[in-house]
């Protein structure tokens, strides 16, 4: 069974590019572009891994992460945060709040795919389901 990843990112073309990329890598990909309703989307879609942008309309990625960690149902959900380069304070905050990994924009596609595979291991997903992702 493929892993399910939810991308919470308000830039439609980033969503499309990394959605395509992760689909080709075997992920079941969903996208969501609004911070204010992200928690509902997470609740509904029950992803195995979450990719979360830092700056979102309605609610920031950090606030969403804080809420996730405060909820027993999602406290262990592996989260990859996307931050902008140079915003070291955001990165430190994200790690302090319990993000499992972060990438700074602009990131490389290889970095993204590799990081998601690492998080799949955190989520105890079956490596064999990945197209090229056997450990």
């Amino acid at each position, binding site marked *: 069974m493929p892993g399910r990843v939810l991308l919470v990112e308000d830039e439609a073309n*980033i969503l499309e590019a990394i959605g395509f990329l992760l689909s080709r890598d075997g992920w079941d990909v969903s996208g969501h572009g609004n911070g204010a309703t992200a928690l509902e989307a997470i609740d509904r879609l029950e992803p195995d891994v979450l990719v979360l942008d830092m*700056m979102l309309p309605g609610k920031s990625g950090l606030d969403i992460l804080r809420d996730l960690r405060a909820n027993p149902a999602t406290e262990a959900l592996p989260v990859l945060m996307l931050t*902008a380069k140079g915003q070291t304070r955001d990165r430190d905050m994200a790690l302090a709040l319990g993000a499992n990994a972060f990438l700074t924009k602009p990131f*490389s596609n290889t970095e993204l795919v590799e990081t998601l595979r690492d998080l799949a291991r955190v989520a105890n997903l079956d490596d064999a389901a990945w197209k090229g992702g056997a450990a």
Partner: protein
Amino acid sequence: MPPAIPLPRRAQLTGSRIRDRRLMQGLRQADLAAKAGISASYLNLIEHNRRRIGGKLLVAIARALEVEPATLSEGADATLSEVLHRAAQDMRSRVDPPPEVEMIDALSGRFPGWTGLIVAQHKRTAGLEALVDGLRDRLRHDPVLAESMHEVLSTVAAIRSTADILVREPNLEAPWRARFHRNLHEEAERLSARATAMLAHFENTVPEGSGPSTPLETVEALFEAADHHFPAIEAGGAAAIPQLLAQTAGMTDAATRDLVTRMLEDYARDAARLPLDRMMPAAMAVDFAPDRLLHLGQGDAALVLRRLACLPRESDGSGAPEVGLAICDGAGALLFRRRLAGFAIPRFGAGCPLWPLYGALHRPGQPLAAVLDMPSGAQFQAWAVSQPVAQAGFGAAPVMRATMLLRALAPDTDTPTALPRIAAGPGCHACARSDCPARSMIGPGA
């Protein structure tokens, strides 16, 4: 540690100097404006330091006032000797042997050209340092810039990911290829617009020529122009505030007007509790030493420190000494500052964690005093106290505020041995002490 050299009285702002000169000559604003060929309202903005002035207009105003332009731009108090003293202090710990300050008069007499060069270079360095400090503050704390940066980098991320897919997937299906080409085009357009917007923001935030832009900056400019002393409020209390506001340019913005009003009302309350005719003679009798004036506050040490920071200073250097003041809330956020030459107090963010200002927050109600050794070699005496300013209710912690008064330690005075000495700095972001145990993890040496 080499002893500090006394600093001259800090130069006033150009606009304030123009106003002083005009009043000395008994000219009305309209008269001077007409002579200089500008409107009275524009001159009013200049005199309240709301507009920068230089070039032809400065020359025209100087001519109308019958003074040299440099007298207005550099100040009559910023004499050659004073600037050389300041230059010597700033570089004292970095040159060996140290500058022979006792020979300043001989130097400027024998080598006026070289002396002029030192002065010009010192002023240029100071101007550039101020510009760097201002830009650094902006970059660290400007939410608009942070958002613009995120937008630009998001666009770059979209372009990079999309282009990578197009290059690395030779057998990409035609509909996907067309879609990604279209996305690339969209993102390129977006990048162009966002980069242009970010540059425009930079242009708008460069300090030169922009004048004060936030309510707090306007308040600071107003207090600095008045040298932190308002005779009308000292004499007439809060009733004098509306008239003062009416005479002050830049009060059309409601937020600015509210903030200025609140700050002046605080000033009026302090003046009423500890009037000038009681404070000034007592302070003069003890050489303005805060520890010998605490009784005047009747339990409110912060009041005494605040009042010492707004006593009148005379143009000949007599009267109250030059002091700095910093006030922060319980979280350490700086709420108000009176700047002091040689001691940088940031407008945003944190100062040095070793300042007694922050130490006082841990010992509420206990006045602290210390000698601060700055990385430049200058020494300052600091007095600080934190006190509750509001009660949050029974059983709840009070709302605290800390106040710190600063004064340069004159070189011919012995360092007070009874006071603790602290190897402090201007704040980790600009501090040269790389081995300081208090250095912030996010500082340049982390």
